[in-house]
């Protein structure tokens, strides 16, 4: 009897423990299914087009804009940055390999040596430092231009974030997941409040995008950033966007490339595994 009780008890404990942490794969399946049921008829890859997948009028405007996309000149600038040799004669290819189309899909990645999430931006600046060059700023300018080029070259490939079976990697993933669902700031808003609960609905005139497909088009060219920039450069990185979101909910933003944002990117991008890379994108 005692044995049976212990067995039952431990089985009970096991199930609660298992419920507490679902695997990344389970999280992804639920996440994707939720959006597919909520927006039937939208193709998986189209979720990467944000509001333009959800609203016919916005889509038309966007498609005509895409005929002469404002991010094109920054893709070209990024190509130049990629091709220009460092003072030591080497170039980015010495860090990332010769084929620029094979870079973007590797990020964000878990680095087992340093036990942390490494982003494309992180490795760009590491490459510069390792070669005696001055690192780029983290949120806009050259780092976003190079990212735009590498994203453009990788268009059509599928997001494929790998979370290794390493407790530290899972911990990082869990922290990012928690960040996405936790309310923060004076306005008490979580990422999920808008992008899970209310995608397709409007805040003022702007339509909220789905959490699914949110990272596929980064770096992004935003009309809002274009207006704020003295030279009309609207390009920015994912962490620039994270900071802007946190500021709007009146939370103190974390620094670009902080542990918090890298882990958020890890979870956030993993949720879009299997969707096509469509960077750089355009958004209002």
């Amino acid at each position, binding site marked *: 009897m005692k044995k049976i009780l212990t067995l039952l008890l431990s089985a009970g404990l096991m199930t609660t423990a298992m419920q507490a942490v*679902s695997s990344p794969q389970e*999280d992804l399946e*639920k*996440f994707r299914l*939720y959006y597919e049921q909520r927006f039937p008829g939208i193709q998986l890859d189209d979720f990467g087009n944000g509001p333009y997948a959800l609203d016919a009028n916005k889509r038309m405007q966007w498609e005509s804009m895409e005929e002469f996309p404002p991010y094109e000149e920054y893709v070209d600038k990024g190509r130049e940055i990629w091709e220009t040799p460092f003072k030591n004669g080497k170039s980015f290819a010495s860090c990332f390999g010769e084929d620029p189309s094979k870079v973007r899909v590797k990020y964000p990645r878990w680095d087992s040596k340093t036990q942390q999430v490494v982003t494309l931006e992180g490795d760009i600046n590491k490459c510069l430092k390792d070669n005696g060059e001055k690192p780029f700023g983290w949120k806009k300018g050259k780092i976003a231009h190079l990212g735009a080029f590498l994203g453009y070259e990788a268009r059509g490939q599928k997001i494929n974030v790998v979370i290794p079976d390493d407790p530290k990697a899972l911990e990082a993933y869990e922290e990012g*997941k*928690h960040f996405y*669902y*936790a*309310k*923060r*700031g*004076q306005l*008490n808003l*979580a990422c*999920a409040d808008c992008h*899970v609960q209310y995608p397709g609905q409007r805040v003022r005139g702007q339509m909220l995008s789905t959490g699914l497909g949110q990272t596929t088009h980064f770096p992004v060219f935003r009309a809002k950033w274009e207006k704020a920039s003295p030279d009309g450069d609207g390009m920015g990185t994912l962490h620039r966007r994270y900071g802007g979101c*946190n*500021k709007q909910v*009146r*939370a*103190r*933003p*974390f620094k670009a490339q902080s542990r*918090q944002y890298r882990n958020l990117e890890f979870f956030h991008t993993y949720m879009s595994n299997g969707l096509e890379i469509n960077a750089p994108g355009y958004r209002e």
Partner: protein
Amino acid sequence: MKKLIAAFGLTLLIAGCNATTPEKPASLKAQYEVALKNAQAAVEKAAAVDGEWRDIRWKKSKKRYLPSAIKAAEAGDYEKALKLLEIATFQAEAGYKQAMEQKNAGPRF
């Protein structure tokens, strides 16, 4: 006219009396020093759990309650400093409480 002047005088007298009653600057300063320590501790506590709000001390905030309070005190305006510290402390405590409440936040569809 005479009546008006009389009434005016009375008002001034009352107002004058009121203005002299509040505590002396010295005790305000002491109050400020205690409040500043409390506010700073509350802000560190909120920051430690990633719960700090935008307008407490972030460099790009337009309000920056905590540094603004210190500035006001440096200019001798302890009353203003105390008011700002009260807001900073409230926000820090609310941010900490929020982070605690959200500790188990996770997927909900």
